[in-house]
């Protein structure tokens, strides 16, 4: 007993085949076994033609661990089409699915860029907030300008607050005027005034 060496190496006994042709991997996406679904989702990240099938699977998948791998593979396979499919989950009532989509979209600036305008102008204020959350964490040079536009055009206070929060981190001097206008517009709201002042102080420190 106590310290022993494995007789068979790292886990040779339980070694599983990795890889496979695309057709069989696609079949495995619907397996009853979660591990098989995860393996298939992981392997399909190497096959761009499987991107839409992974998006389809995400619509039905309920296993958190399989969803996680699906999101990661879709980040690898990112494209405007993939981002469009993921953006649909911003409307989901399933918080885990919705948050997974937000996190995945934050990793794909070029792919989500063509959809940002629509998302920022969505009828649903929650979707607009999620779009602002995505923008704030996106490696995207246009992000500060788009967030500034939100300040100018948006009427919903919570969307504006999300944009102020994001600009505090990614904003430049060009955002100051819009921030001041917003502060004037919501002068009676103590939180907005505080958030704008904080954002301006941080931006000016740059």
């Amino acid at each position, binding site marked *: *007993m*106590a*310290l*022993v*060496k*494995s007789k068979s*190496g*790292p*886990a*040779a006994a*339980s*070694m*599983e085949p*990795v*890889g496979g042709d695309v057709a069989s991997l696609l079949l495995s996406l619907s397996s009853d*076994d*979660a*591990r098989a679904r*995860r393996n298939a989702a*992981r*392997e399909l990240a190497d096959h761009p033609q499987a991107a839409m099938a992974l998006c389809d699977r995400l619509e039905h998948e309920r*296993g*958190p*661990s399989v969803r*996680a*791998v699906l*999101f*990661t593979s879709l*980040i*690898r396979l990112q494209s405007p089409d993939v981002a469009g499919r993921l953006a649909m989950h911003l409307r989901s009532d399933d918080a*885990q699915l919705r*948050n997974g989509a937000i996190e995945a979209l934050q*990793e794909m*600036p*070029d792919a989500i860029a063509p959809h940002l305008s629509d998302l920022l102008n969505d009828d649903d204020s929650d979707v607009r907030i999620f779009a602002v959350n995505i923008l704030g*964490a996106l*490696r*995207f*040079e246009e992000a500060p300008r788009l967030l500034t536009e939100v300040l100018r055009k948006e009427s919903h206070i919570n969307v504006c607050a999300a944009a102020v929060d994001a600009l505090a*981190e*990614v904003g430049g001097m060009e955002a100051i005027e819009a921030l001041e206008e917003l502060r004037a517009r919501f002068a009676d709201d103590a939180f907005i005034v505080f958030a704008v002042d904080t954002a301006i*102080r*941080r931006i*000016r*420190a*740059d």
Partner: protein
Amino acid sequence: MNALFRPSKENFSMTVEEYAKFIEFFYRKTGIQFQENKRYYVERRIVERMEKTKSESFRDYFNLVRFQMDGQELQLLINAMTVNETYFFREDYQFQALIKGMLPSLVRGRDKRHALKIWSMPCSSGEEPYSIAIHILEFWDQADLWDIEILASDIDSKILAEARQGRYGARSVQRLPAHLLSRYFAPIGDGLYQIRDELRDSIDFTLVNIVDKLQTGRYRDMDVIFCRNLLIYFDDVARREAAEMMYEALRPGGFVCLGHSESMSRMTSLFVPRKFGDTIVYQKPSSAE
């Protein structure tokens, strides 16, 4: 514009707001937190990167770090910010958590025919897996009741050869109590210590690239994975993949130990945080499929 001005170690200093903004950004990207008392350390490393990238101001450099598409400069900054010093019993509160919390939890109701498997990855020059072994032998009263396999892996074959050799300088062993140093090491001159063969031979050292699915796919049924101060070097998607690899490698109910400045919850929601003593580790749900 003063074309001759360049930030340098002598003239560079961040404002309070710049520093606050930077450490918040750095924390969000890496989970690593720097307080005000680390300002000098942080500033020195930033100015070094500013000089390397020929950035004319902190703002220029910060924009590069934030918006560069491939994230390469962020990665280089992370590398500069982290110091990988390894030695025996480093962050030993996690080894104590292993003995007092994780192992007792893992053996509860477990069939003794199933060996406990612990994976140290990356193991660097071996101080971590040997420290784990010593802690188990010295401090776990059930050690003799169980078969315990310790696997130790690294991507660097040279450092792995050093780990297998088990020869260390005084600095590496300075935190070991004297009685453990004499029990597990033999002095071999020139200030070096050779780890005892029995301990050295009890650990499986293997070459592994954590991002290679074919290689990591062989690691299954682990009970504990020590993966400390590695993921901070990865980009976000690679970090997610690494976390998912560990999930796959663990048994349900198994644990991951990350470095003190790392947080699994910033990478994935697959694991459940568990607090043992002074440390937080991450558990694969027992009900995991």
